[in-house]
């Protein structure tokens, strides 16, 4: 193994060790147990629920969406995953804070819907461009 890999890896082990040491010595045992449960549940929910659902969605798209449209549907879903993920807690916590905080006082459902309209519209526009280009290419032959 190269020196670079050893250096990077050793730096990583030192940081992990430092973080773990501080956690184990400064955080009460009960909180550490709760943290361990959260960490395990996070992986279980991602690997056991979200990822299989994503795989299922991918399989559905491959099965039911025609070839030329497929890439635009998949692309739109990929582009929207981040804003959807961050919107979930925003929606759950909307309007829970005093007005003076200027916090969580937007209509996030409507905003998310608009953003999906923009994503969907962009994907549809790119799809139309693709159809027109393909048609021209066919005519030019």
């Amino acid at each position, binding site marked *: 193994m190269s020196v*670079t*890999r*050893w250096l*990077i*890896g050793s*730096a*990583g082990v030192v*940081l992990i060790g*430092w*973080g*773990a040491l*501080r*956690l184990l010595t*400064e*955080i009460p045992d*009960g*909180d*550490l147990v*709760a*943290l361990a449960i*959260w*960490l*395990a549940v*996070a*992986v279980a929910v991602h*690997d056991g629920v979200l*990822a299989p659902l994503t*795989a299922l969605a*991918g399989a559905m*798209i*491959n099965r039911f969406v025609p*070839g030329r449209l*497929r*890439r635009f549907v*998949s*692309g739109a879903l*990929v*582009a*929207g*995953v*981040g*804003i959807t*993920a*961050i919107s979930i*807690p*925003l929606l759950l*916590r909307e309007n829970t*804070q*005093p007005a*003076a*905080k*200027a*916090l*969580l*006082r*937007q209509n996030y459902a409507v*905003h*998310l819907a*608009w*953003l999906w309209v923009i994503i969907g519209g962009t994907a549809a526009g790119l799809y139309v461009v693709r159809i027109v280009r393909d048609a021209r290419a066919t005519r030019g032959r």
Partner: protein
Amino acid sequence: MPTLRLPSSPPRLWPRFAERLRSPAVTARVGRVLGLAIGICFVTGLLSGYQYHPWTWLPEPAHPVWGYRLTQGLHVTTGIASIPLLLVKLWSVYPRLFAWPPARSLVHLVERLSIGVLVAVALIELMTGFLNVLGWYAWPWPFVAVHRFLGFVLAGSVLLHVAVKLPVIRAALSRPVAADEPAGGGLTRRGLLTATGAGVTLAVITTVGQSVGRLEPLGLLAPRRPSTGPQHVPVNKTAAQARVRRVAADWRLEVRGPRPFTLGLAELEAGATTRADLPIACVEGWSVDARWHGLPLLDLVRRAGGNADSTVYVHSLQAHGAYSHSLIDGPQLAGALLATHLNGERLDLDHGYPVRLIAPDRAGVLNTKWLALVEVR
């Protein structure tokens, strides 16, 4: 070393993936950006931690005055950007979870377990960090300490992962993304990277308006809309939350030191003629430009018998809480104001009426509000 004998092929119901899009070419490119984002997040997180626990021999600088605004805005923004990046990155390697055999050797088993730690810590660190911005403490542990220590574990796990995978990463990045890509309909690798980039850009521009004033109108998913706060500045803790109901008519600011004195409201307001344009930047990522009027803190410190080298403690009317008082010294002391006015108006009670601290390049919550006592040591 004991060896575990496994069948050469996985059980019949073991998940199998015939996905042509997933490849190291995609993983390495998404991972490169994610690693960079996590690196920025880690370093800016350390800088933020230093705001709260500086070494006595190295006080916080006061310049640039927008330093904390920049670093903490970057911290929260790169954290948000990491959420879609992490999801795509994990998607791209998901089949490897079902690699057969599950472990080839003890070293391979340890490596796989370390990836489990990396994934768990990344998910929890990003999720709890974002929920903290929303003021949502859905867990029993103390957020700041655990976020900080997990940050070390996360940064270290990323480095270890990079070290282990470096040959694969190098090989993947040294070839064009579409090299050896199987033909077929649907999304291409390039299309996937473009869509991921678009998704990250969208997440950033719809949230960064809470830190960048000009982009506030685009902040459709921004937790805060700074300009909608009282006097166009958000409040982190309201007077009601701090149990500061109203300020007594005979309120006086007590200044302790070698030559102690007190200041009444009228005297304080009459002397509040110094103007300072200083942003206020919160640990939760929001920040906003503001115009303050007040008295230079150093003037009061000198009057009480101290000087620019003094250590000064300011105490709030707020009786309880970690931020009912704060320490200020060094360059920040020289630039600090005891502010009575914000954006041309008398300070709102939620912003710390009758007087609050505001200093350059200082984490928002350390600019103590509702002051009652200044202690010069």
